[in-house]
């Protein structure tokens, strides 16, 4: 019977690694989002300052209810552009005073989405003066 004395230590190390690097999945994404590819992406420095807006067509189990049209998802539910204002206000309130000016909105839009809906979202963000945005994209190799 071989000795397995160190295996628990190794497992512990793994455990700590995952505990430190993990980020809890806070929202369930209900729309199909396949991010477009881009080679010049920059990393998001502070994840805690980012708010996410998902744009895409609803997943299969929501098609009956919401159809296949491109929809906006804020937090856990389908919303319209009119709700963005409240969403941004709520996100702002949740932040500390000092961080509010650094707030960033990450637009996670499906690559098949049309610019019409994205323009609407952008206009609404401008109206709420949430001007720092990021077009989320996958890192791609330079062609």
């Amino acid at each position, binding site marked *: 019977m071989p000795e397995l004395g160190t295996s628990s230590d190794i497992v512990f190390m793994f455990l700590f690694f995952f505990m430190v690097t993990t980020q809890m999945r806070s929202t369930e994404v209900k729309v199909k989002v396949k991010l477009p590819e*881009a080679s010049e992406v920059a990393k998001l420095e502070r994840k805690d300052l980012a708010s996410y807006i998902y744009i895409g067509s609803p997943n299969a189990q929501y098609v009956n209810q919401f159809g296949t049209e491109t929809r906006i998802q804020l937090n856990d539910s389908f919303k319209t552009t009119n709700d963005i204002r409240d969403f941004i206000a709520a996100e702002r309130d949740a932040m500390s005073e000092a961080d509010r000016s650094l707030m960033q909105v990450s637009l996670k839009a499906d690559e098949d*989405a049309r*610019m*019409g809906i994205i323009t609407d979202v952008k*206009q609404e963000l401008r109206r709420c003066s949430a001007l720092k945005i990021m077009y989320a994209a996958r890192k791609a190799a330079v062609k």
Partner: protein
Amino acid sequence: MSSRKTPGLNTQSTADIAFLLLCYFLMVSTMDQQSGLQRLLPPMPTEKQKTEDTKVNKRNIIIVRINSSDRLFAGDQLLDVSQLKDKIKEFITNPNDDPNLPEKEKKFIEGFGEYPVSKGIISLQNDRGTSYNAYIAVQNELVRAVNEVRAEFCKQHYGKPYQNLTEDQQKIVREAIPQKISEAEPKDVTKK
């Protein structure tokens, strides 16, 4: 009594417990890197500002337009996405001081000295029917053009890539070669 040893702690199960926890964290963790193209939107114009439109010299602006069938126009030329980068680079650098390309303004940059900064602005227009994929591809090419011009500047003046410069030096580079991309007010390009 003092001679009695403390009983050995049963540690057989700690590995199992740790393993269960490990599995739990493996399941719930998302390690996706958040990355993307960062932009600053222009603030919404107030009523007063709407009337006075800033006049920009025609040579200082290049209009990049994507129509509803994802065709790309730069200036008035029909281009492929792969050609856009070089077009923009030429637009920013204006190597031969072409009177049709943007003028340069000698500007004093702190810590560097005078440098002819291009006054060119890239105006990006799109249609409501443009696909997001095409839009990001074009945005990416624009950023790539600016980054390449910056890389050349770094190589020429500092002899090392942008990432290896100090923060102050990076600021100088950003000031010497600004990234002026304007995302135009939405309008239907194909309508007219």
